[in-house]
């Protein structure tokens, strides 16, 4: 689970419509708005970074967006750890000898 904090900037006159659109998007919450500068702070919750990238692209593609960039990322729920010899090293499949050209 990834949670990101994202800054979105729009022209001040687009702020209301953008907030409305953002609120309708899955995984996105609008937290703070600064009317005068057109800045909106949102969070995005996503299963994977893949979904996060797509999510951010989705925001950037909205009409009137000047900037949408991440600032904060939390991954405290990741718990996997390291053990033993990596599997990749036990199965040597890398072809280092065969001539490259058939």
């Amino acid at each position, binding site marked *: 689970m990834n949670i990101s904090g994202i800054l979105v900037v729009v022209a001040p006159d687009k702020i209301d419509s953008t907030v409305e659109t953002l609120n309708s998007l899955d995984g996105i*919450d609008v937290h703070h708005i600064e009317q005068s500068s057109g800045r909106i702070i949102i969070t995005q919750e996503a299963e994977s970074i893949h979904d996060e990238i797509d999510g951010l692209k989705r925001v950037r593609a909205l009409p009137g967006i000047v900037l949408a960039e991440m600032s*904060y990322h939390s991954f405290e729920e990741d718990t996997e750890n390291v053990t033993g010899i990596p599997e990749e*090293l036990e199965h040597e499949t*890398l072809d280092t000898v065969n001539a490259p050209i058939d």
Partner: protein
Amino acid sequence: MELTRRELLKTSAAAATATAVGITIPATALAKSKEAEAGMQWDKGVCRFCGTGCGIMIGTSEGRIVATKGDPDAPVNRGLNCIKGYFNGKILYGKDRLTQPLMRMKGDKFDKNGKFKPVSWEVAFDEMARQFKKTYQEMGPTGIGVFGSGQYTIPEGYTMAKLMKAGFRSNNIDPNARHCMASAVVGFIQTFGIDEPSGNYDDIEHTDTVVTWGANMAECHPILWARVSDRRLSNDNVKLVNLTTCSNQTSDIADSEIVFKPGTDLAIQNYILRELIKKDAVNHDFVKKHCVFSTGPYDIGYGMRGTDKYAFDAEKDIQAKELKVTLDKDEAIAQRRKEGEVVEQKNTKKPVKHWMITFEEFKRGVEPYTLDFVAELSKGDAAEDIEAYKAKLKGLVDLYADPERKVTSFWTMGFNQHYRGSWVNEQIYAIHLLLGKQAQPGNGAFSLTGQPSACGTAREVGTFAHRLPADLVVFNPKHREFSAKLWKVPAKTLNPKPGSHITKIMRDLEDGHIKWAWVQVNNPFQATANANHWLKAARKEENFLVVSDPYPTISAKVADLILPTAMIFEKWGLYGNAERRTQAWRQQVAPPGEAMGDVWQGLEFAKRFKLKEVWGEQKIPGLKAKGYDDGKLPDVMAEAQKMGYSPEDTLYDVLFANKENLKVKWPDATVSRGHGNHIAEKLGDGWFPEKALFDEYRQFGVGHQHDLAKFDVYYGDKVRGLKWPVVNGKETEWRFNEKYDSYCAKGSGFDFYGKALKKLPGGDLDKVTSKEKTSLAGKAKIFFRPYAAPPEQPDNNYDLWFSTGRVLEHWHTGTMTRRVPELHRAVPTAVLFMNPEDAEKRGLQRNDLAWIESRRGKIKILVETQGRNRPPKGYTFAAFFDKGVFVNKICLDVTCPMSKEEDFKKAAIKVYKA
């Protein structure tokens, strides 16, 4: 209502983001945010991906990194953080992290053909030293090599450079940064006599014209791009031009996109120079006071071997061009010669030599580059109307020429990874200098870099085959003397003959000139072009390859010994970014298992060598230098003993844990602040290696135009890096400009004070005519460099261009970013971007599996005809992060002959259905 942990984290993420960008939020939100972060410690750090050098804050809890955020106080990124920034934390926790040394064994002994088995550090170093000594005794200092890195921390690079150069007396240490910015370095040294940019990132907010040349900033430098787009979109007067060989994301907000044919950027630059003169946009006053004109030989080859002995049969036709080139129609015009003329490449050994010319000669040089000629030659998209293309070129000239306009030009690998990479670098300065638009806020040519410390470590520390710290070079007797004195080693310990550059270390492994090599903080067996040769070389019976790595990369797989390595926030370190900013961080968490930092690995290895084993007479084939017998380094033991050293002292005692350094104590009351230092703790002799070595290193540059502050200063709470030279505690914003740079002579206005290559003979466009050398102290050089055709181009057999580079979600060979499983799925595998018509012609559709074949190898890849890279007909692109799609088997190991940086951007391939 009680908030769930997830909701609390969201509140906290929003509060942190708002605070980072300076938005006031209600006190209740702040309070909740504090609650979410209870038990979490925050400390400043630097992103270890790309050369931008964003400041990030690292959040740790119970010995683990749990969050990262853009540092609001960091002037580079101002609280923002691109998607890569997040990996800094996540990357430590990949499932296949290496945690113990692994050696190829049969039974309980090392065996080249054995399987990897875990061994102790003791056993690992024993075998490593045994193999080293065998080769060293047989071949001397040239028989060993180190593949260094632009991702080395400053103390790591310094440790290895000192160990190799002052200890082993070998100059065979060269970083992967060679592949990244060596051409930029040559451009700086040739033009200014000193390395690294005059300006800084604030040029973005000061300028009103941004021109990107061969730099897909939107994908590769997203945070700087956010600043550029912010500037562009908030001011209508700001214009943006993207020069590229493939339509990409950077074009999305550009006012003009110029798609040119690979290699013809040189011709476009000369067209611009010609037009600036015709329009009389030249800033004559600036040029007269601060510049001279210069040129050099054209017959400099392409950085390939001079023999086809090691070439595959299919490669031989290209390799032959290293010796002789038949000029094509365009080169003939561009070089004022005849089509079909066969030009012997006579200056492959001295490609950097140059001489002064007059402005009149310079004008004669650029005269052939008319709009008609250059537009025909360079137009990269056959579908584009030639008149429309010409209008864009003219528009570009108008932007550069407009006296009311400030212009900042950015470039990265499109220029640097180029068979004439040093020339295109020189030419961009030529444009800016001719206009007097350099070294001022918003005005300047600025070289972006790709690695976090390509500048700070590779270049400034000098982990190159020919360099010493602070722009000193091994072949200059005064520089050697100065360095030896600072290092407290006998003067003739240092080897005056430059060693092998990184591609040559690979070639040396193949042809038997190097038999022992150590890979650190990089993955050269995946990242070096023409990889099939080097993979075979690694596995040659007589070669011993050590690879220090946190993960099982391709390099690790072809190694004989793998050393598990600590990653960024598991150790103390400093990096230097592309704008001369040096930044520091502390160890945040302990490395996993037995993994250890590279500084420790270098120091521990140094303990295994006594002075008597390395400081006796050593053979150096081909060495010729004043004061040295041909072909050898003298025995310096007698002098060493006079200096108080014993033959039984180890290199660790003499070079590292010496009297002065042992005084620098760990733990350190000023900076350690409760953070651990696994290296100091494991060494156990009470010193603080990173601090002692940094403060020793900085002495090279203090008072010599490369001043760094003291170690402790960079750890100050308020400090977010400092741009060198740091003089009297003050950083330097714009170099060479008297207003900002205290090194400029009083009353000079501008002073290009770099000292290298500042005495030149005079000549005409073709040759030296007056051998008498004139001093150009304080001046910069404006070069004339002609268009030269790429040595390999599409033909009937290999009928498409192929280029490689990065995509946003991955970085370099993907060793780190591919560990993050979700991310891996974002770009599941490298794809071949190609024009839909080219695909159709070959019976291919999107997502079909296809073969790419070049003269050097073939690989399978998925075809992509849509998406963010939109190649013109005849051009293809694939990123090089995926070890399953080994694109460097395809690429050509041509280099810029001056910089020895490989050209990853111009191979000819054929593509067919798999």
